[in-house]
């Protein structure tokens, strides 16, 4: 047994191994984590070796399944260490602990880049490996050219180049634009000449990915691929170390799945590696849609496979037969193996049973439906729960699609209900009722069958329903049979009734029926009509088949076959259950227009952004109407008139900031019809305290407004939902999807909003901690036949919980010094800043609720601001901000943020950064009119392209 080489680590692992139970283990882990945490806090005494040891320990603890929620910084910072051992640990543990979305990764992009372009080969390898394993989009943008250079460099060793190839593949997956097709097809062709098989293997993965995206661009590489294959498969010209159990690099052959065009040797070797190649060859045959002769040879081969005992081969035989069914007409040949396939349906291995079920489903037609469906029903008796739903759905579909006669169909469905009633949806039994009603011959048979089932002691609810219906309508056809008098029928159904759940409250239900029967009894002669038999149903498309079509997508996870046929793609594991495909949402629903009129319209300017930005604004400050319908805003916009102007100090500082008044967004209906393609457009007023939102769905129009009051970490909001139509909104639902840092409580929302009415829904918000995430309002309703659903971001953003505070130098400097602790005070050089004069930055800060404190910093290019942040966890916490600008280069500045909480520091820093960088292009759109100096650029968001973003932008 070899030890780790780090004594402390080995001791810790031994300790963990010696724990007798989970509880002891947890205690030991907690103790270690506490120790590491203290050591990291006081970093001075920490040697590089110790740091390295602690970071490995953290990874070990993390692998054991414990949360390690600190130390990420320390781990990431090891990447920048000067020596190899620490750097190595930094890189490896970072790629295990963090994922590509982690913000800490951004901090090391530069270090990583320096390692990649530097001279040290070992560092290059470490950097390429980490980026290849967890690099995200940002890495993609900044590193791709450097990685490409390494890949084609003639001076790099293979060990670097193969890593560069796969690293580039990762970057390409994150952002396909990083590989420029024009330049790369020739490069790829050269790379395929590579003699080192390690590099060639890696290059081939990259190549396959590029080709699958754009095959035409890489035609020039085809001859080379064929040559590589020939070299390996025919000439066996390959270094000994790359043969695997005598087969020349099977993986490289498998990789060439698209191009594999040479002879298929159908010699069944017992070896998996050669089988792997063989199945690729089969895939190729299918892909090429080869002639029938070849196909039947393949099926014959697969037929042998599904009869062998080796489970993997049997599985693959079944799977590949299913695949073949999708591409060619080999049903008849496959049918010869039906008995064998049915045997596999009884295999103890669920993987094999699933493949067999898929295959049986795929090969079923009128000639074998009876046999196959009956097998499925048989299997239903023993199938485990996980497969029952799929099984019963498939049986029902096959029975309906291929039923040789209708009585058989009725039999099958009744058996299905009996065996797996929970999985038989209402659609299925409705369909039975329709068939029976429309076919007189079937009626006595169906009624008799229903009567038989009622004799069983325990019945599924669905069975009671379908029997009651059938006997209710056709019971009289059985009148002469024993046990079938009306009275007996009634008694037996009545017996079963308690097992049926009522869909609504029973008393009301009974009252309702009582009233209905009473009314019926007074109809006199018309009563005969009411009690007559049901007329025939009009021919309709089978709801079941329709559902199955939808379900093709929904149940994809159950059926590998479907996935294959759809070439379903995904880069990540689908972690949650797949949500059902929502087929009913009309595509035309979107928030079409956002306009923000305000009552102090005379003293403001309107800037409109449209795709080609239009010259807009006005000298006199009167709003410019880009849309001719703006005039109908004032009349619909009742709230604007009740809003006291005093609530809106015209100070520019408040422009972004406060939403003391209701918020709403408005778009006149006509605009949509005239400009259906113009998805979104803003018409923005700087004093954006009031606006209206209208959701347009062709004919209906709904207003959503918002009013908010903030106090410390509490917010009290009122949502207004206004229905401007002459018809009611039904099934109204409003949900708040709160990010984890907010606690929200929305009062109940009425199900219906009457015509021309407005409802107000109070919403309470509590801020738990600092975060830039935004709460989303998920609002839906039915209007007429259409379901409308929109998601809007709520203006509950970080600065709502900030309160500007003015500090004197005596108060400020001790605080500033006291926060000189890693993570509590964070400094960053921000690039790409919109160049602004310092006073404008100051007013931007004011609008973010950061109080600028003049005189604290003697340097005129610097600016210091203070604010108090409120949340439940931090309570009132002082935040200090300093920026240092460079008069030579206004596009960059140094930002320092300090507070008593590291998360708050980080979030606030990012929040400020967003505003410094993401300052919209006011200058571009507004003319240099000096009349409007109070217009703070940050007040006007750029053209966002989603409605939610826009709402947030208003704030």
């Amino acid at each position, binding site marked *: 047994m070899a030890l780790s080489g780090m004594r402390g680590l080995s001791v810790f692992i031994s300790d963990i191994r010696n724990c007798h139970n989970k509880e002891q283990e947890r205690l030991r882990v907690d103790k270690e984590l506490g120790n590491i945490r203290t050591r990291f806090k006081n970093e001075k005494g920490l040697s590089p070796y110790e740091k390295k040891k602690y970071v490995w320990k953290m990874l070990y603890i993390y692998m054991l399944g414990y949360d390690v929620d600190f130390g990420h910084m320390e781990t990431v910072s090891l990447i920048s260490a000067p020596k190899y051992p620490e750097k*190595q640990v930094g890189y*490896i543990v970072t790629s295990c602990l963090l994922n590509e979305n982690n913000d800490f990764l951004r901090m090391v992009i530069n270090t990583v880049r320096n390692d990649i372009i530097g001279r040290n080969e070992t560092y290059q390898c470490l950097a390429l*490996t980490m980026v290849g394993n967890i690099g995200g989009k940002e890495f993609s943008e900044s590193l791709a050219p450097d990685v490409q250079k390494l890949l084609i460099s003639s001076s790099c060793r293979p060990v670097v180049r193969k890593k560069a190839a796969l690293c580039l593949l990762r970057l390409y997956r994150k952002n396909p634009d990083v590989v420029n097709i024009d330049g790369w097809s020739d490069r790829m062709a050269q790379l395929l000449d590579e003699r080192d098989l390690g590099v060639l293997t*890696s290059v081939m993965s990259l190549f396959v990915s590029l080709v699958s995206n754009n095959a035409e661009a890489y035609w020039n590489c085809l001859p080379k691929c064929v040559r590589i294959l020939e070299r390996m498969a025919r000439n066996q010209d390959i270094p000994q170390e790359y043969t695997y159990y005598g087969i020349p690099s099977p993986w490289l052959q498998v990789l060439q799945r698209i191009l594999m065009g040479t002879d298929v040797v159908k010699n069944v070797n017992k070896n998996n*590696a050669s089988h792997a190649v063989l199945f690729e060859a089969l895939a190729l045959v299918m892909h090429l849609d080869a002639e029938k002769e070849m196909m039947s040879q393949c099926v014959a081969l697969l037929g042998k496979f599904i009869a062998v005992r080796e489970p993997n081969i049997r599985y693959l035989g079944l799977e590949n037969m299913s695949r073949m069914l999708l591409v060619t007409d080999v049903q008849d040949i496959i049918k010869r193996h039906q008995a064998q396939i049915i045997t596999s349906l009884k295999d103890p291995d669920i993987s094999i049973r699933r493949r067999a079920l898929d295959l049986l489903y795929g090969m079923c037609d009128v000639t074998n439906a009876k046999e196959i469906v009956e097998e499925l029903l048989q299997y239903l008796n023993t199938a485990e729960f996980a497969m029952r739903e799929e099984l019963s759905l498939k049986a029902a579909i096959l029975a309906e699609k291929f039923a040789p006669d209708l009585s058989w169909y009725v039999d099958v469905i009744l058996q299905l209900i009996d065996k797996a009633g929970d999985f038989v949806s209402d659609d299925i039994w409705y369909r039975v009722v329709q068939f029976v009603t429309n076919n007189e011959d079937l009626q006595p048979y169906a009624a008799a069958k229903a009567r038989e089932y009622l004799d069983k002691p325990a019945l599924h609810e669905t069975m009671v329903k379908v029997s009651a219906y059938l006997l209710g309508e056709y019971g009289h056809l059985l009148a002469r049979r024993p046990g079938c008098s009306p009275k007996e029928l009634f008694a037996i159904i009545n017996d079963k009734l308690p097992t049926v759940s009522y869909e609504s409250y029973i008393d009301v239900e009974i009252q309702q029926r009582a009233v209905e029967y009473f009314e019926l009894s007074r109809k006199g002669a018309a009563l005969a009509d009411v009690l007559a038999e049901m007329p025939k149903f009009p021919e309709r498309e089978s709801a079941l088949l329709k559902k199955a079509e939808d379900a093709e997508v929904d149940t*994809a996870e159950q059926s590998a076959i479907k996935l294959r046929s759809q070439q379903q793609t995904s880069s990540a594991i689908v972690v949650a259950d797949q949500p059902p495909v929502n087929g009913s949402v009309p595509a035309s629903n979107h928030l079409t227009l956002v306009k923000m009129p305000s009552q102090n319209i005379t003293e403001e300017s309107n800037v409109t952004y449209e795709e080609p930005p239009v010259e807009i604004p006005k000298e006199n400050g009167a709003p410019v109407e880009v849309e001719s319908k703006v005039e109908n805003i004032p009349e619909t916009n009742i709230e604007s008139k009740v809003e006291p102007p005093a609530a809106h100090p015209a100070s520019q500082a408040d422009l972004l900031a406060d939403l003391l008044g209701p918020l709403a967004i408005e778009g006149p209906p006509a605009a949509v019809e005239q400009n259906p393609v113009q998805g979104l457009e803003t018409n923005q007023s700087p004093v954006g305290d009031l606006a209206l939102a209208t959701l347009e769905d062709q004919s209906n129009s709904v207003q959503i407004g918002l009013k908010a009051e903030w106090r410390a970490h509490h917010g009290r909001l009122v949502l207004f939902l206004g229905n401007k139509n002459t018809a009611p909104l039904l099934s109204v639902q409003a949900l708040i999807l709160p990010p984890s840092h907010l606690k929200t409580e929305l009062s109940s929302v009425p199900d219906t909003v009457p015509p021309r009415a407005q409802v107000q829904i109070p919403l309470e918000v509590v801020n738990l901690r600092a975060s830039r995430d935004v709460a989303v309002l998920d609002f839906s309703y039915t209007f007429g036949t259409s379901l409308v659903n929109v998601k809007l971001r709520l203006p509950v953003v970080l600065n709502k919980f900030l309160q500007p505070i003015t500090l004197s130098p005596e108060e400020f400097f001790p605080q500033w010094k006291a926060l000189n602790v890693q993570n509590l005070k964070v400094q960053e050089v921000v690039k790409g800043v919109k160049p602004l004069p310092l006073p404008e930055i100051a007013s931007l800060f004011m609008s973010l609720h950061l109080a600028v404190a003049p005189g604290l910093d003697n340097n005129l290019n610097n600016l210091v601001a203070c604010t108090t942040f409120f949340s439940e966890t931090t309570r009132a916490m002082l935040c200090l901000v300093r920026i240092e600008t460079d008069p030579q280069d206004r596009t960059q500045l140094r930002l320092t943020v300090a507070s008593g909480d590291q998360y708050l520091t980080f979030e606030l820093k990012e929040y400020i950064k967003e505003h410094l960088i993401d300052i919209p292009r006011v200058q571009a759109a507004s003319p240099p009119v000096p009349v409007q100096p109070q217009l703070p650029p940050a007040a006007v968001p750029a053209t966002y392209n989603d409605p939610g973003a826009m709402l947030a932008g208003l704030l």
Partner: protein
Amino acid sequence: MADTRETFQQIRFILLQNRQGKTRLAKYYVPLEDSEKHKVEYEVHRLVVNRDPKFTNFVEFRTHKVIYRRYAGLFFSMCVDITDNELAYLECIHLFVEILDHFFSNVCELDLVFNFHKVYLILDEFILAGELQETSKRAIIERMGELEKLE
């Protein structure tokens, strides 16, 4: 045709777990949150641990499939795409085990426990970005020798 960029060949994650479900190595090539990783590890373990040795080495997992192989008390599992070549990955696992065996000369679970950091290093030489990087045992063992000298 659908965008197939992501469908080709990518390994989503690799797990090395013992029969009790203790994770000895976990490498994710797709971004997952911690809680989700722990859930995946728990589910995959449950999925493979009770399967009869006579069963196939493939089992469906959510919308993917897991190719696994058991060596003594250790399960090596790879999560790959539904359309991927099962046998190729099955042998990939075996090659990895051969490399470990060579490196530790007669590998046992304890080697992997106490030298988990080495196992990560070897894996990084073998698979990168969810793709095979090097299939020569010799090349990898030599590379590990180079790296050990640097420490």
